[in-house]
């Protein structure tokens, strides 16, 4: 699929989902274009077939029966016309309704597919792509797709149908006039596209300058406090004045040209009209009879035909300028479809594990192999000779070997970039190891289904993320089927109950914007409560650092402590009390475990740990 253009894929996608509707839409477009043509042709019939014959009959408004003009045929014709027009209106409305369904439905499907796919992507994808970029696929790119699907394509279809139908009726009426009309339309098309090309340069420049100005505004306004502190207002203003003027002049140039297109088209069409009238009259008055002066039906050019022809000529030239516009917007949108499909083509996380977690009783769980064998969930995690790198060329972890027995607490310490967080991200398979094995209760973690694996691991990340919803919803995030009482019990366990009860609506308080209305410490307590309600046998904790005052920290500490009781715990430690309680401390340096043991043992060997502890690291 990759080599096919993304626009093509999009159309194939829509066609697959909306075959029936699209066929109906095509019929509707045909009907409505034909009826609008019929109505414009009616002018001819009106004058030639109904009014002129009436004029020839000497009229007498006061005349006797049968002498006066007979309006009967006209009335019948008008009723017929009304019926045709009504059919056109119904077809047009139906077509609109269908297109709304197809357009919005496609958007819905695309969004759902995109989101569903995004949720399967590995963590690495989110590390290496900017969040703003991902967001913009949902907002900007899908919106441009909507434009193409809902507006551009149907309008293009309509234009083509109108042009073809008009051409056919023109040919039927008169050959040479048709040629003239096509010639004029062609010239108009050329001029429009020529102008379009001319403005392209300016539009590109406008886009660039817009990017520059928006970027500058964004950067400077965000850094406005720094600007003030350094008294750089004057310089920043001077720079802004310059780029602002550049933007103004490029927008002016671009708009100037695009503003010309409309009057130019309109008036070219007017001049064409005059040309047609003159040539038509010359033919009508002078050159009757010759075959090449007739239409396909052999009729000669009459007054009514000429009038109708002029109307048709307008019909032909109107969509010409549209077509080039529509094609342009498809090209523009293709950048959006490219980005959409780029995200859709990202590879999902691999999950070939077959071992599942099954519930035995109230709070006991077992692993079940595909062959039906069961093994109790204990929480024994073991790493053997594990190597890992975020990119194959750059290994960040080397020969990591360690075992955590059920209920043990393993603390990781080490400097920035030593690889502590990385290790914990391997156990839950956020990233795949390059070499070595990780086992969980004897199973290779790759044999365990990811769902089951992650369900058996509780995580408290260093960066807290909360979701829009109530406090209770956020705690329940740990286990969807937890009752309110269980959630509150979990909050009590980790000492979060106190502050929650002080919130305006207690557990029902709405949180928005990543819990922006809570303090850093409170948010962390909620994250801990969330892990507590999940009640996992193995815990991974990444202790938060700084930015929290000592007192809140103490509260969080107590919460974490009660959570860790009785569970196998991996903790990335920043606090002394945490390491002092640990069964094992792993000291990491440049991706290797360089020292391991208990607090006192490590102090005694006076190595790296001793340096870290005494703060003499250089």
């Amino acid at each position, binding site marked *: 699929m990759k080599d096919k253009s993304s626009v093509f894929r999009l159309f194939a996608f829509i066609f697959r989902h909306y075959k029936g509707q699209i066929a109906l839409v095509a019929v509707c477009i045909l009907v409505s274009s034909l009826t609008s043509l019929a109505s414009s042709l009616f002018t001819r019939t*009106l*004058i030639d077939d*109904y009014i002129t014959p009436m*004029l020839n009959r000497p*009229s007498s408004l006061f005349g006797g029966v049968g002498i006066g003009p007979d309006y009967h045929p006209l*009335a019948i014709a008008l009723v017929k016309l009304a019926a045709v*027009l009504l059919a056109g209106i119904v077809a*047009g*409305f139906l077509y*609109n309704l269908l297109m*709304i369904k197809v*357009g*919005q439905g496609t958007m*819905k499907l695309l969004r759902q597919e995109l989101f*569903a796919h995004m949720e399967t992507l590995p963590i690495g994808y*989110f*590390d290496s792509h900017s969040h703003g970029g991902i*967001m913009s696929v949902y907002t900007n790119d899908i919106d441009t797709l909507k434009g193409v699907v809902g507006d551009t394509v149907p309008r293009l279809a309509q234009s083509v149908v109108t042009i073809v139908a008009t051409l056919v009726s023109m040919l039927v009426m008169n050959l040479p006039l048709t040629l003239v009309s096509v010639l004029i339309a062609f010239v108009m098309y050329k001029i429009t596209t020529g102008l379009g090309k001319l403005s392209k340069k300016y539009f590109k420049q406008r886009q660039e300058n817009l990017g520059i100005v928006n970027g500058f505004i964004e*950067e400077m306004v965000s850094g*406005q*406090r720094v600007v*003030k*502190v350094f*008294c750089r207002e004057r310089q920043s203003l001077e720079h802004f004045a310059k780029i*602002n*003027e550049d933007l*103004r002049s490029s*927008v*002016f140039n671009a*708009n100037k040209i695009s*503003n*010309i297109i409309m*009057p*130019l088209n309109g*008036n070219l069409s*007017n*001049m064409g009209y*005059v040309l047609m009238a003159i040539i038509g*009259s010359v033919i009508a*008055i002078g050159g009757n009879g010759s075959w090449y002066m007739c239409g396909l039906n052999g009729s000669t050019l009459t*007054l009514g035909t000429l009038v109708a022809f002029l109307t048709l000529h307008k019909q032909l030239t109107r969509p010409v300028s549209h077509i080039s516009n529509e094609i342009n917007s498809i090209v523009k949108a293709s950048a959006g479809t490219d980005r959409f499909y780029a995200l859709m083509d990202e590879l999902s996380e691999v999950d070939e594990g077959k071992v599942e977690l099954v519930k035995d009783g109230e709070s006991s769980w077992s692993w079940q192999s595909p062959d039906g064998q069961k093994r109790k969930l204990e929480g024994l995690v073991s790493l053997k000779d594990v190597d890992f790198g975020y990119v194959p060329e750059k290994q960040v972890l080397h020969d990591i070997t360690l075992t955590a027995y059920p209920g043990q607490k393993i603390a990781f310490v*080490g400097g*920035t970039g030593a690889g502590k*967080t990385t290790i914990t991200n391997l156990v839950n398979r*956020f990233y795949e190891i390059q070499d070595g094995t990780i086992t969980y209760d004897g199973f290779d973690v790759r044999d365990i289904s990811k769902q089951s694996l*992650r369900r058996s691991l509780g995580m408290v990340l260093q960066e807290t993320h909360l*979701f829009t919803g109530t406090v209770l919803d956020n705690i329940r*995030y740990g286990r969807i089927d937890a009752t309110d009482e269980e959630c509150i019990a979990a909050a009590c366990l980790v000492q979060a109950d106190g502050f929650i009860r002080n919130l305006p609506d207690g557990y029902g308080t709405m949180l*928005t914007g*990543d819990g922006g209305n809570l303090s850093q410490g409170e948010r962390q307590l909620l994250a801990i409560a969330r892990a507590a309600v999940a009640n996992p046998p193995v815990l991974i904790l990444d202790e938060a650092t700084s*930015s929290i*005052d*000592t*007192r*809140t920290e103490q509260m969080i500490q107590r919460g974490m402590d009660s959570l860790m009781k009785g569970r196998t715990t991996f903790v990335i430690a*920043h606090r*002394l009390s945490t*390491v002092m309680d640990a069964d094992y401390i792993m000291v990491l340096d440049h991706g290797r475990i360089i020292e391991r043991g208990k607090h006192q043992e490590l102090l005694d060997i006076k190595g790296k740990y001793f340096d*870290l502890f005494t*703060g003499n690291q250089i």
Partner: protein
Amino acid sequence: MLKTLLKEVRQYRTASILTPVWTSLEVVMEVLIPYVAASIIDKGITAGNLPNIYRYGGIMVVLACFSLLFGILAGRFGAYSSTGFAANLRMAMYTNIQKFSFSDIDKFSTAGLVTRMTTDVSNLQQAFQMMLRISFRAPMNMVSALFMCFFINARLSVIFLIAMAILIVSLTLLISRASRLFRQIFEAYDGLNSIVQENVSAIRVVKAYVREHHELGKFDKAVLKVFTLQVRAETLMALNGPVMSLVVNGCIIAVSWWGAHFIVEGSLTTGQLTSLFSYILTIMSSLMMLSMIIVRLTESFASGTRVAEVIDEKPDMTNPKDALTEVADGSVIFEDVYFSYGKGGGNALSGISLEIKAGETVGIIGGTGSGKTSLVNLIPRLYDTDQGCVYVGGKNVRYYDMEALRNEVAVVLQKNTLFSGTILENLRWGKEDATLEECREACRQACADEFIESFPDGYQTIIDQGGTNVSGGQRQRLCIARALLKRPKILILDDSTSAVDTATDASIRKAFMQRIPGTTKIIISQRILSIMDADRIIVMEGGKVIGFDTHERLVEDCPVYKEIFDMQSHGGNGDFDGPVKEKEVRNEG
């Protein structure tokens, strides 16, 4: 609001007035053309009179040429005035933002200001151009087409009036209904986007708790809501089409019927009938256009209000008359200072009185929200006090020229930013004409020299917007170096070494002692290690100073300080690895 905005038309006034003039002339031409076209048919074609065809054809071509000319002029002037107007608006906002004090910036959020300067301004630019060009054109077109209809045949034109009335009523009904729906759609979209946003940023939580299905359910619900509302709104708007066609086609049939009668009577010509048909289209399409304009203009009204708010905002701090430009020394005095962020909020600081001597090193410690940052922000007058006075160098800060004061009082802000550009350019924010050697010296003091030299491009390394390509600790050190280049009399570090490891932190402080002994140094930190060797330490709680003394004495006298000290040195924040603010910094390619 309108007055503020229209003032910014400034040098584009003539163009703005001329645009509708050209547009009107263009419309006159456009309206005349079908009339002449009718004459071609009546007096030329019907009469079989070629010279008449040439004559009227010639007139029509001339009219078309003029129409084109006026059209081009209108387009040009419209583009000129609207883009100029937008540029002026941006400039006016930006200029005023430069005068904003910190509290003004607080009032408008940063994201809010950016939207106002970008999206809102471009909305206004379009609205302005539309106002000058189309909003004159549509009614003019309608009125003159109607006039021509009456001129051709008054009796038939009554039909148009009725049709117009029907259209106007139904359009207003539709638009008012739809605009309510569109507002709901806006909210639904916000909901949708916030789910995506949360999932992108919290993907680790989602995956750790295996909540993909749950999130999918939430998302589907939000998508369905958007879908339902959109379909409803668009269906409503789609009614426009049939209503419009019904009216237009009804007109055509009615005109055909009565027109035939009048032609037979002899009071109407066939040519006139065809031109009436084209006027029907003109009138109806200008009506549609007018309704569209009204919708768009009401939409941009909101943008206009937001832009005007920024331009009209009176900065709440101004330079005093005869401002002092010399700061005598680095001494600071607070005299019974009270301070709050805006009305409604409680006092961030209350009853602060203290004295810091020039050249002293003062540490500040206290819990979150205890008022540390508020306290130091008053020294360079980033905010004004509510009550009480702050003196720097013996003079009230309100008497100083703000630029002079801030050049002597350097603050390294807690939430600091680097700007896109080279490291050297960023450093020179501190001193515009600083030599490379001066910058190096400052970086050595801030322990930044070493890592800068380790970059392949050294001081010419390009910093990305927001400084995202250097680690948190590196960013903080660069910010300190930048402040040092000012050679201030007072240097304030607001939790500026939180991402720097303890050892580096210590050597930065050591450098301060040795290299800038005369500078008053005020250091805020959560880490007791960073401040315990300061000359004196301010302990804050709940916006009050509860202790101001040396470390030794505070440990004895100040229970809060002692608690912090105990916790951090015994079992509290042992601070093993230097706080890890960011994930492992990885460089791919």
